[in-house]
């Protein structure tokens, strides 16, 4: 069987088109930048009859050209995607085949966008995101990976091979290489993005890696937020000695060399003393405390209802917590086997501890600042004068009104956590070495980067696009929440 070329048959038409359009686009952009120094600015002139007229001049003309070329460029890119999906496997080359694999993701994305744009006026801040190009691009990138992760992780679609299986003879082979023994042109008959140094499929590993990234990064960030919020709210609300002490501690943690911490966490002597386990036990209890205080402050006026709600919520969370903490072979092993629902591999625990450790001081500071600001509002005074407890005020009066900046920060921080995941993998910490997550794969491919760049490049681009997406999404959200 033949190896696949990058663009296959459609390349004959689309490649020159892409070349021409992008060339013109760059020329126009340069022209625009140069002109912006000389040409008069675009002004709007009002006429006597109340209409408005744009006086574009030459600058306006170039601007229109840039916009037109941008659309043309997008059209060419869409053509690549569509031709890949429509044409039979292989006819549109590697790019076409990759797009064909992503078909369910593309469909989901289109459906999400169409539905959201139709109902955007009814969807609050989420809907407003669709008024903002940057936010839309960011949301699109993020959702692309979220959908990919779900289809790959839950339904086992998209990937063409098992991320761990090796096929002899494909070690470090270039993208589009045919798999020995396959004889029909069909998904799986090629290593679309080549093989890595253990002869595994780079494409499939990247796809499966997304599932790990999409699961762990947001969850770890949630924990960091829980810790930051639970400490930041009272610090900002009460102030005084408590605040001074905590803030000092936060600064101390921020000044701590993080890499050292990582190494400490995984040295066997440390593990033996049980410190990571205890840390996890402390760390994971925060959501429990959080839920307890949240619900109790809200429902304490109706004791019967409160007891029922708390029993249910804490029961569920408690079981989850215990099975999370309890683990055979560590110091914390007390549950009978049937109650221990699941185990978390030690590596992931390290990831969680690190993410929380690195992020919660900053989140603490943000929340503290917001709480100090919001506590001066009259509605907080009103709550005080009707005798509400401090935790109700913090969690139900202050926190909801601090959500805007926190949501934005949350997006950014998922990005950091993803990178941190990669960084940890890079040091050989965190996840097991054969894990397909992006950080580990970049690390594994780094040794032969100058000879065989693709095994490292593919997950790097994936990571880059996802973090970029999160940042753009955060930007869009920030911009929209500032408006009205």
């Amino acid at each position, binding site marked *: 069987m033949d190896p696949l070329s990058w663009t296959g048959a459609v390349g004959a038409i689309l490649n020159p088109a892409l070349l021409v359009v992008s060339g013109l686009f760059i020329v126009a952009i340069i022209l625009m930048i140069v002109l912006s120094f000389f040409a008069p600015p675009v002004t709007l002139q*009002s006429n006597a009859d*109340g*209409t*408005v007229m744009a006086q574009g001049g030459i600058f306006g003309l170039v601007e229109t050209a840039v916009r037109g070329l941008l659309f043309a460029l997008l059209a060419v890119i869409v053509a690549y995607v569509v031709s890949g999906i429509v044409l039979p496997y292989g006819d549109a080359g590697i790019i076409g085949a990759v797009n064909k694999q992503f078909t369910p993701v593309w469909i989901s994305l289109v459906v999400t966008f169409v539905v959201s744009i139709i109902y955007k006026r009814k969807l609050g801040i989420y809907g407003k995101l669709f008024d903002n190009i940057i936010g839309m691009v960011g949301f699109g990138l993020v959702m692309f990976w979220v959908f990919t992760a779900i289809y790959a992780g839950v339904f086992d679609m998209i990937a063409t091979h098992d991320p761990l299986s090796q096929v002899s003879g494909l070690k470090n082979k270039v993208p589009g290489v045919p798999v020995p023994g396959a004889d029909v042109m069909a998904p799986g008959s090629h290593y679309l993005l080549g093989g890595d140094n253990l002869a595994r499929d780079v494409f499939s590993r990247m796809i499966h890696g997304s599932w790990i990234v999409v699961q762990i990064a947001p969850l770890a960030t949630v924990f960091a937020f829980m810790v930051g919020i639970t400490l930041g709210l009272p610090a900002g609300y009460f102030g005084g000695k408590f605040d001074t002490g905590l803030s000092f501690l936060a600064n101390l943690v921020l000044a701590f060399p993080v890499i050292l911490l990582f190494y400490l966490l995984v040295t066997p002597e440390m593990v033996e003393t049980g410190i990571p386990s205890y840390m996890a036990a402390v760390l994971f209890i925060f959501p429990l405390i959080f839920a307890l205080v949240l619900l109790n402050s809200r429902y304490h006026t109706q004791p019967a209802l409160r007891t029922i709600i708390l029993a249910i919520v804490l029961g569920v969370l408690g079981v989850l917590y215990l099975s999370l903490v309890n683990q055979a072979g560590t110091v914390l092993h007390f549950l009978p086997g049937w109650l221990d629902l699941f185990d978390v591999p030690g590596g992931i625990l390290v990831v969680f501890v690190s993410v929380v450790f690195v992020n919660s001081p900053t989140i603490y500071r943000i929340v503290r600042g917001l709480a100090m600001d919001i506590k001066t509002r*009259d509605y907080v005074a009103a709550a*005080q*004068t*009707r005798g*509400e407890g401090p935790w109700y005020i913090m969690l139900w009066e202050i926190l909801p*009104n601090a959500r805007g900046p926190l949501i934005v920060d949350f997006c950014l921080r998922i990005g950091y956590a993803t990178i941190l995941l990669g960084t940890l993998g890079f040091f050989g910490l965190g996840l097991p070495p054969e894990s397909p997550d992006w950080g580990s794969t970049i690390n594994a491919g780094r040794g032969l980067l100058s000879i065989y760049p693709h095994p490292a490049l593919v997950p790097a681009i994936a990571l880059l696009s996802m973090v970029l997406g999160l940042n753009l999404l955060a930007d869009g959200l920030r911009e929209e929440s500032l408006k009205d």
Partner: protein
Amino acid sequence: MSDQSLADQSPSDLDLNGEVYDGPILEIDKLSISFFTRLREIPAVMDFSAKVMPGEALGLVGESGCGKSTVALGVMQDLGVNGRIVGGSIKFKGRDLNTMSPEELRDIRGSQIAMIYQEPMASLNPAMKIGQQLMEVPMIHEGINEKAAYQRALEVVTDVKLPDPKRILNSYPHQLSGGQQQRIVIAMALMSKPSLLILDEPTTALDVTVEAAVVELVKDLGKKYGTSMLFISHNLGLVLETCDRICVMYSGEAVERGSIEDVFDKMRHPYTQALFRSIPLPGANKNDRPLVAIPGNFPLPHERPQGCNFGPRCDYFEAGRCDSQDIKMAPIEGDELHETRCLKSDEIDWNAPVVAGETKTKGEIGDVVLRMEDLRKYYEVNASSLFGSGTKKVVKANETLSFEARESETLAIVGESGCGKSTFAKVLMGLETATSGEILLYNESIGNTPIEKRSTKTIADVQMVFQNPFDTLNPSMTVGRQIIRALEIFKIGNNEGERRTRMLELLDLVKLPRAFADRMPRQLSGGQKQRVGIARAFAGDAKIVVADEPVSALDVSVQAAVTDLLMDIQREHKTTLLFISHDLSIVRYLSDRVMVMYLGHVVELGTTDQVFSPPYHPYTEALLSAVPIADTSVKKKHIVLEGDIPSAMNPPSGCPFQTRCNWKGHVPGGLCEKSVPPVRMVAEGHQIKCHLSDDDLASMEPVIQIAAE
């Protein structure tokens, strides 16, 4: 140049090219301004015309959001990214500002037109000394040297009546008080000797007595420099005091325009009339001559009705006529330069007496509910901050506060910033505990019981209505939920259903539609939010409600409705209302007794009639004179206080008011500076804290007199 007085070279008689010019300084013709947002175009100002002659002051009044500031910003050609002039012209000294180049505009803005904003700090650079900021103006625009600029700065600072000009020039903005900062902003505007001064609510952020002094200053300077002024305000009284002509705006349009006398005494537009009827002028009374609130709400710019914008709220509305055509400004027969935007101005009987609303019977004043005895509240603060080393200072926020309040009574607490009103409210509510003294609620002492230790009943009995409607409700919770939460906390209702019913009843009580229960606060107007705040305060059937300036942030037309609502609820529930305010007009209108506070002391306490007529405490006298009254027939005694309110950290020795008192000279032996005056009963239930002799007190004349008609 520097030895010449500024006033001699009045700029207003020269045009932009330095030639003699005697036409109108500012001529706005059919101006329309829109803001373009994502959703739609917002026409903020439509078909607005106005003219300001040299040396003339034009007042622009209207409710919040009617487009006053937009007009001002339009003149400054500073509408931001999304604002645009979509029609008409603005001529400054005969030249159209719309067609000028940015350079020309910048030049004019700096030197010929100056603007003063509401917030003084917004116009001052906090990191630069006052002197430098002032000198910069002429150095940039006229290129004069540093020495001449310093001379001129010194001159204007003296002109705006700041004490010790040299020291002021050498200080940073944050070292000055609000009133002083606003004076500096005015000085800065005057540095360039502008022909036109635009003042956008220049005194809203200031205290009443300070406001009176600043207004006085602006008036004098206008005369001295011959500067024309565009004075924007929502306060009709202020406009009466400062301006020659007035333009009333409603929903983006000018609805009536004319000289002060014409518009105040012979108004020819239903909106102007309604506006005057909704403000508490002397003579209005909550029981037999209540205020008439304007029904309905101000239309949003994109929801304006067909035809007359005021139509839906107008008493004289005629379907098929008022709503079928665009209405133009039309001159009024017999008056000079008096115009109105009403089709029926000729037909309406403008002299018809106000239809007296139902006369309400006053609630019977009952037993004493709340008694304060010798209450004191001191705060300890670290004088030298950083490490709080040793030196503690005591701020006396409340000194020997004694009074009682009865059932169904309205007790007004009047005073300017820093007088201890809020501290008093906090102690009463239990957010702070008293330093000494007693608070007795139904003979139970609560002064030293913090709120956590109070019984639910006590908490529900004493509730509060807050000042800022935009801040009083939690923005993330529905209106109904917030009221239900109060019910839950006060243990009212046995289940969710009962509480919901009660919540809907409370909405009825404050005259809001029940559908509002599911709305978010941002979907409500300021007045509506304030009503929800009132409903929440009455959730536990409060016996005592502390209302902290409940209407001062609302528009006049809404103020009347909210005040009336409070009065109605009081009559029905026999509530004791502690009404904190600095607005003496509204206090006179609704309170039974008045307590005047200054720097933590009660300086005067008596029934409303006693406090509003002589003998006065010297501070009360000044306060009364400072309140602008929108009635041309009222003659006021003119009393201007020197200086600002001292800080509570550094109170003066002896009488708290001695630094500003005009009567101090009448007390022999410098007693005022030495000892705190005793409380004296001058009549049954009327007490004054002052050293003045009985003869001096008896010699006082009434401050406000209504000329016989």
